[in-house]
């Protein structure tokens, strides 16, 4: 399976000490919690500063994986989001849930951190995903609110407003 093959590349890089850690968000994480939904890429959140991120790209390039709407690994476009882009990502990666995929253990964002990333982007499909997570998965609301208060500072107000709007629609 191509998704697993792509994730194995990151697993190998982690085992070799090239990358410190990573976690999967987006559609793959959504598929774990609810049902599969169409996507064009795999979202990998990489625990990395600017230099480590650049080094990862260089190594992937040397391995023959080229850029085309995200870096294409094993025929799958992968969107690599480095943790230096937002302080919240490091915490989300550290607190991810370990899930077995084939013969590798992959870290997947917990529902609360997954919702937080979706509140940040907040496109139409993100709203549907948040709605579904609340509907079908046990989401710890106080924990999610703490994450939003602690990890987003200036953006917390807006994200909480978005969250409560969805919760009202759900009722």
């Amino acid at each position: 399976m191509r998704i697993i093959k792509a994730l194995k590349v990151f697993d190998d890089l982690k085992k070799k000490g090239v990358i410190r850690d990573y976690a999967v968000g987006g559609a793959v994480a959504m598929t774990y919690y609810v049902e599969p939904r169409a996507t064009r890429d795999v979202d990998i959140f990489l625990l990395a500063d600017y230099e480590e991120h650049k080094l990862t790209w260089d190594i992937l390039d040397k391995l023959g994986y080229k850029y085309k709407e995200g870096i294409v690994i094993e025929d799958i476009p992968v969107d690599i989001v480095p943790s230096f882009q937002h302080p919240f990502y490091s915490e989300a990666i550290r607190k991810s849930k370990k899930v077995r995929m084939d013969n590798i253990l992959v870290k997947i964002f917990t529902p609360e951190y997954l919702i937080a990333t979706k509140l940040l982007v907040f496109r139409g499909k993100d709203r549907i995903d948040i709605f579904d997570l609340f509907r079908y998965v046990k989401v710890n609301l106080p924990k999610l609110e703490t994450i939003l208060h602690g990890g987003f500072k200036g953006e917390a107000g807006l994200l909480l407003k978005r969250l409560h709007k969805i919760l009202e629609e759900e009722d």
Partner: protein
Amino acid sequence: MKRVYSSKDFTKFWKKKTEADERRRLKDIRLPFSRKLEILDELMEEAIFLSELKRAEKSSMSREGV
């Protein structure tokens, strides 16, 4: 004679459809993760193909000056 459907018929039909959709959905949600990943892999292949098709159409239109 053609049957005339009432709003009551529609409500009944819609309720049945919604319940069936929900049952199907719950069945998909409860599938093993490995099976769900196989489905995701297929969905991704379709999405990538469609996106490349769109891009090819766009570039051919711009070449033709449309």
